[in-house]
């Protein structure tokens, strides 16, 4: 069982417009438009639900993909989004006392 947890970074600004999720980094004003998978991941990234559970409950249902492969792809995606400061990832649940 993957112990990876993901949370939305509160230091970015995000808006969904006609199904497109756009995110701007507060750090350097870079604008990102998320694809469908990344949008699902972003919306489910509450810091408390393990990534494996997110994949099983949302991504596998949406894309009819094999769970093991979907989890590997989701981990890669989550780490990529974390590199850009969009998501936070941790091997422990991410509890946010101060969202700022």
């Amino acid at each position, binding site marked *: 069982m993957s112990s990876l947890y993901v949370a939305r970074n509160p230091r*970015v*600004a995000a*808006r969904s417009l*006609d199904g497109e999720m*756009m995110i701007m*980094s507060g*750090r350097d004003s870079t*604008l990102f438009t998320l694809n469908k998978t990344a949008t699902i991941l972003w919306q489910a990234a509450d810091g408390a639900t393990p990534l494996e559970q997110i994949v099983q409950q949302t991504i596998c249902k949406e894309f009819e993909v094999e769970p093991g492969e979907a989890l590997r792809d989701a981990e890669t995606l989550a780490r990529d989004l974390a590199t850009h400061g969009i998501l936070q990832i941790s091997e422990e649940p991410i509890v946010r006392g101060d969202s700022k």
Partner: protein
Amino acid sequence: MAPLNTEVAQLSVVIEIGDMPVRVNTTDVAFLEILEKRYAGFVSNSQSAEIEFDVEVATPDVADRDADVQVRFHSGRWSLSRGDFRAEWEPAIRRGRIRQTANPYSIDACLRIVHTLVLARKGGFLLHSASAVRNGKAFLFAGVSEAGKTTISRLAPSDVTLLTDEISYVRKCDEGYVAFGTPFTGELAKLGENVSAPIAALYLLSKGRENRIEPVPAGEAARGLLANLLFFAQDEELVQATFHAAFEFVSRVPVSRLTFFPDARVWELIR
């Protein structure tokens, strides 16, 4: 023996852009004349000012206008700097100071930055776009360099009032958004008229073989707007405020793509 009088007369001018009067104080007569000439049409006789800057005119030393702009907020004070100026501004007391040489470009950059900071907290922004008023309505024409901002400004017929060919001033109001004329010029090198009007449309410019207006999806509209926003501050709170302001704008103002052949007929589409 009479004491030496070391007091120097303080001169000032109020530059009012976007309904926001900014008083600039200086002791340098030549610099004051530069300002009055540069901002002709935007000089106000308002006695009150929302912000007051004391300008220290320095002797020429380092004056790299191409250097990166640094805009940071710390301990209640904004610090603004570029190769050719340094400035500080304390919003709580509405005062600041600028150190620069006697030229109009440094203070121009400084004013643009200050206006973006003030507007960001009010849901407004400065936008890389030409803008003009026709039939009491303002139209914005956004695009990067060479997109056609100056061209469409130059082609405007006589019943069109040009607000700017380079940087539009957008304020949020109860009913929607208002565009104001600015002295911030592009290649046309002609100051905008100091008037305002409610914004009827934002056009994303591109040049083509024919004139046509096409709606753009909401996401593309937001990206088009964000790509042309002027924003300088390295400040997460203001970045987020400006981001959300852009989405609010595109939810309330029609955004279309205007492809145009560079002749005056394009203005037949804009009414």
